[in-house]
Every structure is written in C-alpha cells, then in structure tokens.
C-alpha cells in the first residue's frame, strides 16, 4: 500500500510539471488555434538559460530563476515577432509545420552552445527527503508541486479577472468579433506566446532541478501531448487534470507493469490511455462543447 501511495505522489509531482507544459500548449492554441510543436524545446531552452545563469554566470538560484523567467518570456516574444507574425493569415497547417521547424532550430542552437551531455544545477535543496507519514518526498519534488500549483492559481485568476486575460479568452472565442471591439489581436498573440514560453521555461527549470538537463528535454513536449489532448485542447482546467492523470498513470505503470515485462510500459501507457479516451470522448475530457443557437 505504501508503495502505491508513493507511486501516486511521485506521479502527481511529475504530472504537475506535465500540466505546466500542457498549459503552454493550451494558451497558444486557445488564442491562435496553432498547435505549437516547439513547446518542448521552449522548455529545454528555459532549462538551459537557467543553467547558464546559475552555473556559468554564478548568479544565485532564486535570482537566476526570475531572470530566466523574464528571458523565456522575451524568447517567446522574439519568436512571435520574427517567425509567427509574418504568418498571420496563412493556413494553420503551414504555421504548425513552422513550429516543427522551430523546434529543430532551437534544439540545434542549444546543442551548439552547450553540447549534448547531461548537466546538473547546483543543489539548492538538501537531498534529505521529507517524510510525510509513511511516504517520503524529495524537497525538490515538493518545490515543483508547490510552484506548479501557485502558477495554476495565478493563471486562473488572470483569465477570470484581469482585462487582458478576458480579452485573450474573447480572441480565442471569436477573432473577428474581438477585433471589432478594438482588441489588437496581434498584441494578444504576442502575449500568448510570451506566457507560453514563460510557463515552459519554468517547467524546464523544475525538471532540471530534479533530473538534470540535456537536449532530450525537448521530448517532454511530445510526452505532454496526451495530457493536452486528454484534457481538451482549449481547456486550462483540462490541461491540469490531463497532466496529472498522465503523470500518475505513467508512475503507476512504471511501478507495477515495468518489472513484469522488463520496462518500457511507462512510455507507452499514456498514449494507450489517450487512444481509449479519444474513442469515447473525441473532444477530450474538458474540450469546449460548442454552444450553438439554431
């Protein structure tokens, strides 16, 4: 039983990071209807930016964390201005292909600068795990969980109450009508990319803090895909629940099924579940049902 709870807890921690990355996908998709395949690479870029700041420039972790957040947002903005703005009005499929190209470019740049070996952050938390009853959690995991939850609350409040947040939802709902209200949709697109790059960067730092970083971090983008689809592409609560579900499933299948077949189930399980759920609910668990008046 303890083993089970332990798996669930580590699943939730992993899942909360998935949820963060999923949030980035959802933000961009909601505002611009573009599926950003470079989300995983944005995460990787964030992780390496934080690495450069802490290890190479010797900036203390917490300041580095916030500077990295700003730089990630800036990176998102630059990508939006240089690559996506000229494509406004082009078919969505071309833009999606561009994001795949972008992911390759980002990965190549990171490899050029930092090489391919795994790097680690300086330890900021003691490795001594915290005992919560019968189970134990590492401090960095706990930090990740708390950081993720804090961000979700901030985003929830942002979209519910801030005028920019509401305007972003309006643009997601009906672009042309939003324009007719005098909303500058280009600005909204830019903000979406900035925020998406920011959350991806934070996700990257959290993962790097637990497992170290290397270029395969970009793969997280793909792994989070089932979480995004599961929750419904345009739902923020869906991204959170989808992310945590996938994290827990991965952890459980890793713990129980991998020893039986000799490993690997962990990687496949989320996709298998994804298939089943999409068969039953094609819009995902929380995708918006279109409200239509006849």
């Amino acid at each position, binding site marked *: 039983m303890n083993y089970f709870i332990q798996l669930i807890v580590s699943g939730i921690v992993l899942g909360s990071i998935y949820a963060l990355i999923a949030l980035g996908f959802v933000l961009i998709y909601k505002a611009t209807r573009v599926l950003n395949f470079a989300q995983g690479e944005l995460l990787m870029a964030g992780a390496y930016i934080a690495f450069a700041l802490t290890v190479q420039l010797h900036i203390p972790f917490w300041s580095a964390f916030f500077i990295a957040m700003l730089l990630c947002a800036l990176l998102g903005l630059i990508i939006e201005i240089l690559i996506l703005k000229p494509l406004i*009005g082009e078919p969505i499929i071309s833009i999606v292909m561009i994001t795949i190209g972008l992911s390759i470019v980002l990965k190549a740049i990171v490899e050029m600068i930092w090489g391919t070996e795994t790097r680690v952050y300086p330890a900021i938390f003691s490795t001594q795990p915290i005992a919560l009853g019968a189970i134990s959690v590492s401090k960095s995991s706990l930090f990740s969980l708390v950081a993720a939850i804090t961000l979700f609350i901030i985003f929830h409040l942002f979209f519910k109450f801030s*005028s*920019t947040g*509401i*305007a972003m*939802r*309006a643009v*997601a*709902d*009906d*672009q*042309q*009508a*939003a*324009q*007719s*209200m*005098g*909303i*500058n949709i280009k600005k909204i697109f830019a903000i979406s990319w900035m925020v998406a790059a920011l959350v991806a960067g934070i996700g990257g730092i959290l993962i790097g803090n637990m497992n170290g970083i290397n270029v395969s971090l970009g793969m997280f983008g793909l792994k989070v895909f089932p979480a995004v689809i599961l929750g419904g592409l345009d739902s923020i609560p869906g991204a959170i629940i989808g992310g945590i579900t996938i994290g827990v499933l991965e952890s459980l299948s890793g713990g129980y099924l991998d020893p039986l077949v000799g490993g690997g189930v962990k990687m496949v399980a989320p996709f298998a579940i994804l298939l089943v759920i999409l068969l039953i609910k094609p819009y995902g668990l929380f995708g*918006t049902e*279109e*409200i239509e*008046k006849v």
Partner: protein
Amino acid sequence: MLKIKNIEVVYDDVILVLRGMSIEAKKGSITVLLGSNGAGKSTTLKAISGLLKSEEGKITDGDILFENRSLKNRNPEEIVSAGIFQVMEGRRIFGTLTTEENLKVAGYCRKYGKKILKNKIEKIYEYFPHLKERREIRAGYLSGGEQQMLAIGRALISEPKMILLDEPSLGLAPLLVKELFEIIERINRIDKITILLVEQNADIALSIGNYGYIMENGKVVLEGSCAKLRENEDVKEFYLGISAEGKKSFKNVKHYRRRKRWL
C-alpha cells in the same frame, strides 16, 4: 460626420465588390442603408470599421473621412478608438464568456479604470435590465433577443460617437424587433450617437431613419430622406412589398414586376 467618397473595395485582389460607393452620415442622424443580398452593405460597414482586412479585402480607391480624418485601410483598433463601433451581423457575442465579461471586453480598448468600467456596465444594465439578471451566465445560453441587447450594450460601453449596426433584426421575433428599434432610436436621441443602419426589414428601418440610401451591385442607386424613400414607387414595390394596386398577395407568386426605374 462620416463621409464615404467613391470607394472601391476588392476582395482577394480580384473580386470587385464596391465600385464608386459614396454615402454620408450626418452627425446625430440615423442613416439607413438598404439593398438586396450581395449588394455590398456589409462590405461597406466593414470598410468603415477596418474589418475588411481580416477577410482579405482592401479599399483600393476613394476615401473614408470621419470628422475630416481619413480612416482608409486603418486597423480596426484604431477605428474603434477614433469612435466608431460596429455591431456585427449575427450578433457575434462571445459565447464562452459570461454576459458581464462580454461587456468588460468591450471596454478593453478604452483602458478604463476598474471603477469607471463598473459604472459603465451598471449603466448598460439600466438600459437592459434583463442582462443584469443574467450577468453570470455564459452568453451563449442567452436568448437571441438578449444576445442582441448584449451586442448593443457592448457597443455602448466604449462610448462611441457612431455605431454601425449590421442587420440587428436578424432572427428576432417581430415583437423583439419593435423593442429593439425603439432602443436604437433612444440611443440616437438620448445618447446622441450617430447611427448607420443596415437592414433587411426596410419598413421599420425607414420608419426610424432620417436619410436613406439604396444599394445595388456595389453602389448607391437611390437616395433621399426616409420619408421620401417610403413614397417612392420602386422602394414600395421592391422593399416594402406594396405595389400600385395595394398590398401584394403572396398567392399570386407569378406577378409581373415593374421595372426598376433606377436601372
């Protein structure tokens, strides 16, 4: 206040929709724009509000002057801040946002403070008490009439000098249409907002309007005061459904139509 001078609008670089279209809307008036389907009424409104761009349309000739400043091919957000607000055809409310959020979004471009925005929204609720009861409901679940009220409410939030209304009566019950036009008249009279109205319901539009234009094939073919237009034999025949021998019965479908004199 608003002058459209001989504009030419082209979609997709090839499709010529408006050719030599000119109208004028005087300050404080209700100007009515009538015409059959595809005449270019909505295109005219979108040319003014700048929404043409999002449909690959462009003004290729002529000019649009608002308070003597050119609005030609400007971005929609610039035109909204200049004081022109378009209420689009089919209401186009944000279905996934609540009623109140719809109103808040409309104030976004004005950058009101929290308190001012709240007062403005309260004022809209005074106009449309129905909306107040439904403030927390997703706007997609509102009835057609309520959605139209919301669409007009959104226009009023930004305190425009001029509102462009594109077929507000579309899909509404006759009783609601009557109520709606009373509201439009009130907005014009009390809030002193100039209105440019595109309507299919010619009868009611001409009854509240001051001056009217009739469009066909991308240009104006007839204009005059609304009272005068109502007396015009062609308008009676083709827009009001009244012919020289009195009200027409739809039983005689195969009637011989009089030739339009303006062609």
